């Protein structure tokens, strides 16, 4: 029996953002942009979607005089990611 895949995470860019954040405490916007190869506009839209769902939290701060956008996973996002991976297992028949 296949488990349902979270539609919010079942997108290349959003999944890449979540995977990146799961292995780091927090990451700056330019770093996520560079690692995913996404455009700034597209990345902003996807981050907004994940923020609205409560999967990640965004902190706008300053680094010296430059504005800095920090993204980090929320406990809810971590749980959703774990459930997504668990669901993937059922598709791949990995024990």
């Amino acid at each position, binding site marked *: 029996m296949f488990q349902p895949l979270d539609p919010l995470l079942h997108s290349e860019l959003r999944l890449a953002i979540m995977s990146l954040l799961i292995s780091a*405490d927090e*990451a700056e916007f330019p770093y996520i942009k560079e690692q995913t190869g*996404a455009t700034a506009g597209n990345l902003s839209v996807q981050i907004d979607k994940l923020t609205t769902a409560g999967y990640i939290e965004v902190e706008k701060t300053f680094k010296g005089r430059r504005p800095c956008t920090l993204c980090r996973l929320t406990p809810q996002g971590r749980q959703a990611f774990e459930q997504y991976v668990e669901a*993937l297992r059922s598709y791949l028949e990995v024990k």
Partner: protein
Amino acid sequence: MEENKNLTAERSLEIITEQIERSRRNITSNSSCSLICWGTCVFVFALLIAYLWKNHGGPAWNALWGVMWILGYVGEWFISKNKQPVPKNFVSNTIGQVWATFGMFMGVIGFIFGLAGCGLLPVAFTVSGDHFNAHLYVNLTSIISLCFGIASTITGFILKNRIVQVCGFIAGLGGFFVALQYPWSEQLYVMAAVAFIGLIVPGLVIYFQNQK
């Protein structure tokens, strides 16, 4: 990356693995910069102080270690300011804490030995008993080498890197025993070797192993 409604389970798994692995490599590789920076500082200053101690005065040149601390921190700040910000994770935080603890302990020990150098504290002890009479002295390089080795070996265990573990082991125990043979300025050559084996080599190994 584009929005893809027909994402397969295999492709999803590939994205997750790729991103986690890439992130891990970036973070680990970034940790190596501090090891190389501080290792180079210790290596250069050890040789410089050894030369000055031998040819232009005496152990008073050890005060230059204080300059090394300042230069090391300025150098690290400059490097972190000019490079692309890399996030931190549990591994990089733990490595940072291990070396910060090492630095803190060495700073305090160095300060205490500085006081000893000014004649304010003893660094040699005479132990007398019924059956033996021994004159003991504290060898700072031996202590530092041992601590270097411990910190380096722990770093190797955190990174699960056998080369770093072995380098730490050799630098720590090798430096400890070899430095005991040289109570005077020659022990600074041992310190330079310990910095090279215990900091620079592990730093370079971590850096190159995690390059794309």
